[in-house]
């Protein structure tokens, strides 16, 4: 479990750096509700992005993005609604994104 969590954190850190480099503003990280969690909430221009980060070391069991099932997508939508209600946000353009990471030199990091 610890290994998985660490791997996830590394992926998220990497993603945040990448997004900031691309001009995104990070608004929230690991937004947690009873329904589920969203890894990163960021915005760029007029669009609000809800981002799920998937990090994997091997692709034998399918690519990371394939692990975002329909159920997970539904839950993300729900969580996004809660977030926007809580923060009184009323954005027109909302986007749900998946950041797919494949790590190959993982040993040195953990």
């Amino acid at each position, binding site marked *: 479990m610890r290994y998985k969590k660490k791997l996830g954190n590394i992926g998220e850190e990497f993603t945040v750096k990448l997004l900031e480099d691309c001009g995104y503003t990070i608004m929230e990280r690991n937004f947690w509700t009873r329904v589920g969690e969203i890894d990163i909430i960021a915005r760029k221009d007029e669009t609000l992005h809800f981002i799920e980060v998937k990090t994997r070391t091997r692709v034998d069991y399918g*690519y990371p*993005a*394939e692990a*975002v099932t329909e159920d997970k*997508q539904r839950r993300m939508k729900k969580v996004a609604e809660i977030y926007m209600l809580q923060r009184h946000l009323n954005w027109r353009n909302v986007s749900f994104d*998946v950041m797919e990471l494949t790590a190959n030199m993982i040993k040195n990091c953990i």
Partner: protein
Amino acid sequence: MFSKVNTAVCHGVTGITVTVETDIKSGLPNMSIVGLASTTVMESRERIKSAIINSGFDYPRGRITVNLTPSDLRKNGSAMDLPIAVGLLASTLYADAVRVREYGIIGALSLDGEVLGVDGVLPMAIGMMDSGIKKIIVPWANYNETALVNGAKVIPVNSLKECIERINSQDASYADIERSLADADIRKVSNPKGLDFADIKGQENAKRAISIAVAGRHGLLMIGSPGCGKTMLAQRIPGIMPQMSERELIETAIVYSASGRTNQSDSILIDRPFRSPHNTIGRAGLLGGGMYPVPGEITLAHNGVLFLDEVCEFDRENIESLRTPVEEKYITHFRGGEQYIFPCNFQLIMAANPCKCGYYGDPDRICKCSISQLEQYRRKLSGPMMDRIDIRVSMEKVAYKEISGKGDSCRSTEELKNDVARGIGFARSMGRMVFNADISDSDIRKYCHMDNEACKLMDGAYAALSLSPRSYNKILKVARTIADMDESEIIKKDHLAEALSYRLLNEINNS
């Protein structure tokens, strides 16, 4: 990232060309198939994914949309596995997206990328030829039946990988050969089981009746006690029918291909089909049916013989339901707002026992049936369906002398076949292109002329047997067939007398 691939679906017994459009956009990995696809087609997603990966290609990542046009046509069957897989590979540029449009592709996939045979390749290939697609890729298992698609360039493939190589290859030599009936692996010998009418001793009157029935395509009913040879006679009937024409051969092969009965080792059927459904058969089995309708026994007997043994044991409703198809020579099914037309032009032969126990009228054994049982049984033999039977023949038990005899007077398939051919040949030479049983009422006057003696006989018989106008017409038609076999332009007294004798059984029963 867009491609178009041609394929076809088998809609009843007709092939309809379908275009598989594949589009790959970036997005979460997902594949959706639209265009009224059945569960079988939807499941092809899993087969295609495995087959592509196991063939050594990369499975495209992204949002894949597959559209099957015409999108209002219901599609069923696994024959769309291969075209959808090729569509995906053409979208990802493994296959030449321009060249692929010249081909029509049919085939099912196994998980390891092998191309498996499917049902209905023949109608599908013909459908694609009609819409101008000349190069057709089929599974090896179905290569033989495509010989009936005249002028098509057929490329048989074993695997998905081979299929892609064929499409990409500049060298087109493999597709140069146009298919024609000549190179079909047709069973040249007809009558493979060696059935011959000479196997049946005695029953010469029944054999005569059969040859008349076949020559005019009249419905025939044989009535006789158990074991007198009704079934044996019926099984030999396809042997005396004239050889199938090329058109008939293709029509029959289409039906067998569509219903998945093309046995590859057995190659293409050259004999006329002989179908003898069991009497417990349901209506769907007899007439065809199902959610995606498949041909029933009457359609499988197209251009051949439909033999209903123990016809009195069939559900009466099932027998009655044959009335329209017998007249129309096709049957129409409606499913989900779509029309399916199956041909069913067959020679109808029925057999029955004279009563429930089977020994009514037997000189040696006593019939154990009660009067009410007899009446009930008889009722099944009359009615509107029986009215469509032109020839009825009663069969006696064969005497020992006839069985043990050398069989000098025993007529063989060869002789009967000649009789039939003579009858049909004469009718055609007189300008009658339909079988005598199908002569329209208005044409009867034109074709069925009787001489004076015959007229006199008919005059007496009409009153004495209390014939109806309909039976009068039927008798004339049978007499016409008998005269044809005699190569006589005019119906003579003998011809009419024989025709009347085949009617007697019923008229007496009804009175």
